[in-house]
């Protein structure tokens, strides 16, 4: 475990450096001067120059990047060029929204995927299996913004059961918060459900061919017990990997859903900062998301050892 961690760190450090430098370079290459946009059209060239100096934008790219790195090492993510808000505060403010959405989406997905996959794998080729196959392959082909729009049309505009946009904070009104999070989380969950069901189902079908399943059945154990206690655990490796990946993806990239439902999450922050040429915010969010990816990867590895104790002895 230790060696694996170290080699992964050796790989991830250059990746993080490249990603953050790349995001600075990209924002820098974008046409338009942030100082000019902040001051508006009536600004004189002298005013713009002064603001550029004040923001430190007149210095070369590499110098600014080096300074930013030094600050990161001290836990200082810098301040937004636009609002002067510390980037870390902006991130901390928005993480709960995105995290809640991601976790809610995963819970919804698991609640559907596990029973559905167990049933379709047990009755592989049956009518339910074929129906599920058609539905999931159609869902995989739905772009997230279409799923979200369809849900808005059905639940918000036609049935009027849920609000179409807006966010109620958990502390203000827990029930209202769940209502406002339901549709976006469902939109995120639907795609995951489709992918995860297919993966878990095919893994389960492979497990159900094993001899120990046969002997468990021969002992006269009830079907639900065999499925849940004997088949599910060894079949859930790909599922756990997928869940780790999609949690990372949901945290980093729920951009569309957050924009459509007007949710104050991390994805929205990133899009707005990119459009506003706020390099400091972009870099801060990008390095945060990248760190979450890495942490989730390590966590997924750790979860394998819970699922299957044999994986603990690697590296020895």
């Amino acid at each position, binding site marked *: 475990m230790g060696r694996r961690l170290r080699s992964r760190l050796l790989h991830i450090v250059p990746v993080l450096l490249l990603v953050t430098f790349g995001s600075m370079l990209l924002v820098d290459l974008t046409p338009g001067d942030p100082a000019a946009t902040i001051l508006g059209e009536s600004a004189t060239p002298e005013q713009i120059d002064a603001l550029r100096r004040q923001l430190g934008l007149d210095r070369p790219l590499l110098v600014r990047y080096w300074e930013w790195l030094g600050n990161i090492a001290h836990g200082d993510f810098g301040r937004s060029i636009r609002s002067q808000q510390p980037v870390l505060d902006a991130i901390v403010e928005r993480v709960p929204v995105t995290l809640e959405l991601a976790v809610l989406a995963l819970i919804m997905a698991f609640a559907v995927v596990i029973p559905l996959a167990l049933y379709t794998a047990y009755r592989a080729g049956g009518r339910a299996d074929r129906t599920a196959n058609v539905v999931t*392959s159609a869902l995989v*082909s739905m772009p*997230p913004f279409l799923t979200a729009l369809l849900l808005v049309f059905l639940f918000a505009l036609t049935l009027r059961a849920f609000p179409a946009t807006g966010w109620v904070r958990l502390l203000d009104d827990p029930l209202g918060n769940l209502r406002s999070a339901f549709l976006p989380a469902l939109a995120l969950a639907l795609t995951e459900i489709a992918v995860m069901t297919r993966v878990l189902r095919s893994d389960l079908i492979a497990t159900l061919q094993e001899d120990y399943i046969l002997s468990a059945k021969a002992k006269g154990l009830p079907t639900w017990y065999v499925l849940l206690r004997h088949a599910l655990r060894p079949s859930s490796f790909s599922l756990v990997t997928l869940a780790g990946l999609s949690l990372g993806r949901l945290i980093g990239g729920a951009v*569309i859903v957050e924009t459509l439902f007007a949710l104050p999450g991390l994805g929205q922050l990133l899009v707005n900062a990119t459009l506003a040429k706020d390099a400091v915010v972009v870099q801060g969010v990008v390095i945060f998301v990248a760190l979450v990816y890495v942490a989730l990867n390590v966590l997924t590895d750790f979860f394998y050892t819970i699922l299957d104790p044999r994986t603990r002895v690697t590296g020895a």
Partner: protein
Amino acid sequence: MKQSTTTTPTLTVVDVPDPPAHAAEPAAPVRRPRDILVKLAAGWLILIVLLALFASVLPIPAYDVRIDRPALGPSLDLARLLGTDALGRSTLSRLIYGARVSLAVGFVSVLIGMVIGGTLGLLAGYLRGVFEKIANILTDSLLAYPPLVLLLALTSTMGSSLRSLVISLGLLAVPTFTRLARANTMAFAQREFVTASRALGGRRLRIVFREILPNVVFPVASYAFVMAAVLIVAEGSLSFLGLGIPPPSPSWGGMIAAAKDRLATQPQLVFIPAAAMFLTIFALNVVGDRARRRFDVRESAL
């Protein structure tokens, strides 16, 4: 694909025989419902391609001309077959011209990604060492971004036009193809015909491009359909955020974005382009699944 392991394979990939995957399933029924689905999907894709190619000679009005009152429902006249949009333009011709964007992205961007990514992956998988490490760091860096954000940054850097859109999306496809090509190359690099070629004194680049490339091309290219679907979704998402092709040029994502505020009153304006997009992506996935199963290394009885 074992049979194609002659010492002097040509770059013409026509004479590569079918992989033995077929022989592995002798009990297959004569005609499964899947085959009909694949045919239907291929038919839809061909229809879309033809419509997009010959859009300018079809008897439909131009995509930016007002033909009638805004937001009309469908009627039997060809120009008004799918009704008109919020500005009174023919939805049918905007749909057909909009297909050009999706298809340009689906073909050209995938091609860009396949050529760049494939070359990188081939070299990384065969040369290994430092080159592989650098290639890995590059692909992981590209994958560490949320794809839509990378796309946003790229298009805002290059300005929004069809060309910059196609290039950015192509770049987005590079890491996936690099990984695919690398994995496939590593599988073939251990085979006897590569060792033989090396023993005969073949130079490294010759081995990569004359011995390994012909074997890797098909399994990697079979992912092109699925990748095209992914990129069409990405283009749609970008247009949906209002950052795709600038108006008045139509694209499916742009049409959906423009009509999304009318979802309550004229839902057909959203659902017509949405249906076209969904069917195209679904068709690409169905054809892609089929292509992948045909060229999957793992299944071809290694």
